[in-house]
């Protein structure tokens, strides 16, 4: 040690003092302020980062976002219960909404909020509303496959002929929403068999973007994901979509399942009015059109808004009929854990 003991002691105490000051600023209101509306957001972060400033400007409200994943946030809200700091909850997929709804934490939405959304995408008790939709698709590598090689049903991917040839990302809420649709449409036994087949055959990857890249690079012949990953890539630079194409199952197959992004207001929120204002705006034509024109390329649910015509039209998707409030997240997780996917 070259410094004298006293000097280094002084230095230590100065460092201590300044750090404690920083800590107290952090925990006080100085840095974080007190927002008008707290949104727990599990929809794509980038989309909300584009959208929220528009709402803030129009309403004059100050919105704070907390980002996370669907089921993680749904469970966190359930755990928080009455003490939840959240006013609004937004998800990518509806099973997460069902978890919070089953815990009785949502408040019934006023007519104004759901007026513009078709009834199919609002649960009958009107505790939340859909605001965007995404279609399940299979992507395939155009160098090794043709449209004719693709199976008629998503259930066929469990067949041994797909051994090592199909990629999917079981840990994300996206795939779990697809499983919940299979469960609802085909029943528990068929879902179990399907998941076991996928576990044996499939190539497990980190997320849907990696699904797309694996298909594009020829690592696998096909992959299960949602439509917009491929369209977004094509829109931006086409790096991953130029050797791949989309296969829409259609024909009410479970593989044509439309997953709904949901929005709901927490009953515990003291900002009911602001929250209603936000949801009414979110389902209104202006915000729906803004989302349709954003990078996201998900289907707006308000019929007055329209998506880029390059994307397969909403009316041609032929999705199966699924009651949005019946999709069961926890049972899906149990089945997937049983099949060794989680």
């Amino acid at each position, binding site marked *: 040690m070259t410094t004298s003991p006293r000097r280094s002691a002084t230095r230590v105490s100065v460092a201590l003092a300044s750090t404690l000051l920083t800590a107290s600023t952090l925990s006080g209101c100085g840095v974080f302020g007190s927002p008008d509306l707290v949104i727990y957001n599990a929809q794509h972060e980038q989309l909300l980062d584009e959208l929220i400033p528009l709402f803030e400007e129009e309403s004059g409200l100050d919105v704070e976002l907390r980002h*996370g994943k669907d089921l993680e946030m749904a469970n966190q809200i359930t755990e928080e219960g009455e003490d939840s700091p959240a006013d609004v909850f937004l998800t990518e997929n509806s099973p997460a909404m069902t978890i919070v709804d089953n815990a009785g934490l949502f408040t019934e939405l006023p007519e104004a909020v759901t007026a513009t959304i078709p009834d199919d995408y609002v649960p009958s008790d009107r505790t939340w509303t859909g605001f965007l939709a995404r279609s399940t698709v299979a992507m395939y590598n155009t160098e090794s496959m043709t449209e004719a090689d693709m199976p008629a049903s998503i259930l066929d991917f469990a067949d041994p002929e797909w051994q090592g040839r199909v990629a999917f990302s079981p840990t994300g809420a996206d795939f779990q929403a697809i499983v919940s649709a299979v469960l609802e449409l085909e029943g528990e036994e068929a879902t179990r068999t399907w998941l076991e087949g996928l576990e044996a055959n499939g190539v497990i990857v980190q997320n849907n973007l990696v699904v797309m890249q694996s298909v594009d690079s020829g690592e696998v012949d096909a992959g299960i994901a949602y439509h917009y990953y491929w369209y977004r890539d094509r829109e931006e630079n086409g790096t991953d979509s130029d050797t791949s194409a989309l296969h829409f199952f259609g024909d009410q197959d479970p593989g044509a399942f439309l997953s709904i992004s949901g929005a709901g207001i927490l009953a515990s929120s003291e900002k009911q009015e602001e929250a209603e204002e936000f949801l009414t705006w979110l389902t209104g034509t202006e915000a729906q059109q803004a989302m349709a024109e954003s990078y996201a390329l998900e289907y707006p649910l308000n019929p007055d808004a329209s998506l880029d015509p390059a994307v397969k039209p909403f009316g041609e998707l032929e999705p199966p009929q699924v009651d949005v409030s019946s999709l069961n997240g926890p049972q899906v997780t149990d089945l997937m854990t049983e099949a060794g996917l989680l």
Partner: protein
Amino acid sequence: MALLALVPLAYVASYVVIIGPVDLWQLIARPRIAELLRNTVTLALACMAATVVLGLALAVLVERTDLPGRRLWHGLLVAPLAVPAFVNGYAWVSLDRSINGFGGAFLVVTLSYYPLVYLPVVAMLRRLDPALEESAWSLGHSRTRTFRTVVLPQLRPALLGGALLVGLHLLAEFGALSLLRFPTFTTAIYDQYGSTFNGAAATAMAGVLVLLCLVLLLAELRLRGDRRYARLGRGAARSAVPLDLGTWRWPLAATVGAVVVLAIGVPAFSLVRWLLAGTSTEFPLGELTQALVSTVALALAGAVATTLAAIPVVWLAVRHRGWASTVIERSTYVANALPGIVVGLALVVASLRVVPVVYQTAGLLVAAYAILFLPRAVVTVRAGLEQAPVVLDDVAHGLGLGPLATARRVTLPLIAPSLGAGAALVFLAISTELTATLMLSPIGTSTLATEFWSASSELRYGAAAPYALLLVLVSIPATVLLMRTDSPATATTVVEERVPA
């Protein structure tokens, strides 16, 4: 503090009891767990072996031979400490997506973690008394045999401690392994948590992980044995005579250079490449600044809180030895056996049920950091206090100083360097912490690590690059502080730090 540290373990234990033995067995005895166990154990063993070999070889080359440019190499070889493992993983996988699975994980983790072995071995080599080796030579032993029989045994604590630290880090590693698509218990717990929160399967996995950590801690304790290699006097303060490498000088220098290129050249190249070429690269100054400020503030606050919390624990353990103080000290290591996600989850549940007002405040987050990283501060500060002779306190008392004045004027200055080293280690750990931060941070807080993570997991490599770069820059001062092993106090603290058990 010790009680707080037990919250996560109590959480896991009580949940395991709630699950009950039958369901627990069903959750554990399934193929997925076997796969995770195989992955986790093989990767941990392979990386511990590789980092020991690499760390030892590099330390001997740099410290004990006439390798050209030794001082420069030393700096470059420690530098990977400033590159978080998940940034390194991102660098490799974004250059070539085929780098994944076991091979990729082994490569990236070894390159990120070897300084944990290299640094304590270097520090130990510097402190060894060359007279012992000279005596061996004078008795006719060859240099190789002398190294094997005289030097190597003395390096054992440093090597074992380093290997243990690599193992513990690896068991808790989430970011790098998730990016490299190699599932282990920690990544699987995270996936489970994402689906079920507070779920039985996740907790069962955490239980298995705790057992793995205990096995590791016991194995290290056992291998270390009871033998002590301490010497009595301080010995002569001089360096050992460097080994003449002869014609091997340049090829070996090139090999060391290759390690440096792989360990910091690749991440540097990858970062710069993405900064320049990434389509999603942008410099949102406001967001970058906000993330930078909250990272530094949280890391500083956490480092100070953790180091302060370590002082009483260490004081009891060193100055008032007894079973009670030992239990208190050891209990702080328990949380080390759990990944941030489990500690975070335990605190979410505990704070919501007991003290809801602290939920999602910076204070709770700092408490989580203290629980996670207290062991780093404890071992480091302990080494410093062990070296501060009690007799000095007694003299101060004899000269009429009260206990507080003694602490301020005698003890504190003596342990100041180890407080600094401990705080530096904690700072490095906090600035790269991901999972607990994601769960517990106040609404609206973003740190460099969380922002980096959200960009890189959406494969927006270009957007992730500025955050990764800032993370590296923020880590540099703490790394430099740790690197200056020249002063004996710091040298010891680094050595001892690697030997938590």
